[in-house]
């Protein structure tokens, strides 16, 4: 169930900063503790940057989701880029198709409670992460 939602374009590098600020505000508003705020904002920063660098820009959709009595902050980073042909490899630490350190996907997965990667060659990439409050 979705209690509230919104979305933000992530086209250029400065949008990554905006995405971080938006997620921080949500995390504070919905009462995540400081360490979890920091983890969620950091994961958002990694995924937003991926969308800009590898996906050629995209969007961040956020939702406040409810599962039973629990609420969570869910973020989806969607781009129309080339997609990721080998998901297993992409989720391995240190693997990178670009000039990064290869920690963006694998690292952000460790920072959140739920992580879903939906991508294929030529199909763009959608990464959905959730942090439960």
């Amino acid at each position: 169930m979705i209690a509230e939602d919104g979305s933000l374009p992530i086209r250029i590098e400065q949008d990554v900063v905006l995405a971080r600020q938006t997620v921080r505000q949500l995390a504070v508003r919905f009462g995540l503790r400081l360490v979890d705020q920091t983890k969620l904002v950091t994961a958002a920063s990694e995924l937003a940057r991926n969308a800009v660098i590898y996906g050629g820009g995209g969007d961040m959709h956020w939702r406040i989701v409810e599962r039973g009595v629990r609420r969570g902050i869910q973020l989806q980073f969607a781009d129309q880029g080339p997609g990721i042909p080998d998901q297993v490899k992409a989720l391995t630490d240190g693997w990178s198709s670009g000039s990064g350190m290869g920690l963006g996907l694998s690292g952000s997965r460790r920072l959140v409670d739920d992580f879903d990667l939906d991508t294929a060659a030529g199909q763009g990439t959608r990464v959905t992460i959730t942090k439960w409050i």
Partner: protein
Amino acid sequence: MDRIPILQMGDLLLVTIQVDMHDQLALTLQDDLTDKIQRTSARGVLIDISALDIVDSFIGRMISTISALARIMDATTVVVGMQPAVAITLVELGLDLRGVRTALNVERGMKLLQLPAGEP
């Protein structure tokens, strides 16, 4: 264009990062700092990140690169003031800032560089 100021104190350079860094700003800092190390013959670089509420892999990589560059130019870099939540997140992300010297605060960082606080 935005720039992060670099202060000179004797043969020490002090960089206080107070803004939410976008990527270009981080790259500019890298250039400015190496330039300043050369011009001032600085032996130590203190980077205060106490105002940063996140360090992601990009900023982490920038810190490692600056530290490596400075070392090649005969200057020691100490990163000070990392918030506990940032440290926890950084390690979980998979970044351990290997090769980067850290200290709890500016004062301890200066001690590490063997320059008493307050003495220029």
